[in-house]
């Protein structure tokens, strides 16, 4: 109950801040930046894999949001609208860096085979403890970077940022079934790739 009330307060608060910012209250906008900058940076880094690009995305997304605040109708949450701007900026950065200029969130790579589980060995009971914190971070980064951009973006929004399927669909301009299909394949492909590091080795030696 307390959590629900807290959430309701947050939403009201966000709307109040947006209304004030629309009237030119820069302090109110500054509060919105502080509230969401960490999330936007994380999402941008996951999409671009480049810290400099992610910093640019944070700046450009907030600036674009500020300049276009009058167009924000309040039909969705401000955060949903902001993430949508940031994802587009991040994909543009990615396109510029890659020789493959066709990077798109709509990219729905046919990877039925890639998503079929091949690795069915159990994982060590506490796989995270097999590695030091920084080594684990490197493994997780390397693994998620191997996914197509459309898959990893859906995974990050749904499973890392904890947004709903509907919110994710709205942010990415995808249908709910399309989000679900990408999420399933992203989860299965990550699982398959992580198994290499976390599975129990035969002979009882769980060290990789």
């Amino acid at each position: 109950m307390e959590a629900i009330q807290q959430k309701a307060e947050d939403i009201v608060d966000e709307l109040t801040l947006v209304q004030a910012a629309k009237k030119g209250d820069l302090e109110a906008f500054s509060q919105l930046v502080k509230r969401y900058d960490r999330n936007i940076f994380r999402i941008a880094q996951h999409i671009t894999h480049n810290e400099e690009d992610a910093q640019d995305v944070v700046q450009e997304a907030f600036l674009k949001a500020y300049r276009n605040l009058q167009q924000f109708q309040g039909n969705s949450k401000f955060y949903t609208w902001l993430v949508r701007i940031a994802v587009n900026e991040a994909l543009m950065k990615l396109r510029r860096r890659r020789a493959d200029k066709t990077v798109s969130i709509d990219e729905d790579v046919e990877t039925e085979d890639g998503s079929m589980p091949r690795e069915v060995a159990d994982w060590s009971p506490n796989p995270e403890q097999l590695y030091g914190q920084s080594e684990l971070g490197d493994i997780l980064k390397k693994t998620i970077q191997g996914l197509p951009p459309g898959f990893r973006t859906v995974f990050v929004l749904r499973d890392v940022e904890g947004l709903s399927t509907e919110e994710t669909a709205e942010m990415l301009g995808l249908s709910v079934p399309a989000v679900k299909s990408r999420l399933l394949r992203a989860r299965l492909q990550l699982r398959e790739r992580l198994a290499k590091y976390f599975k129990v080795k035969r002979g009882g030696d769980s060290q990789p």
Partner: protein
Amino acid sequence: MKCTEFLKELTDYLDGAISPSVKSELEEHLHWCHDCEVVLNTTQKTIEIYRDNKLYELPETLRVRLHEIIITKCKGSHSKKTSK
């Protein structure tokens, strides 16, 4: 239920977005299919690992710097708007 059918429902099952009848069919399948049970548990673990070990935290000094730049640029864009 076949393993491929189980896999199709895996995401909804993990998210608890599933009808009680499908849920009991899946659990019946899990009862005898060890491979699917491993896939379910390790997929769950995959999600938890990424959720609990947030990558790419924004360092505080960089955060302060970015904030200053954003607000300064907003001020600039605001004065341009009002001077129209």
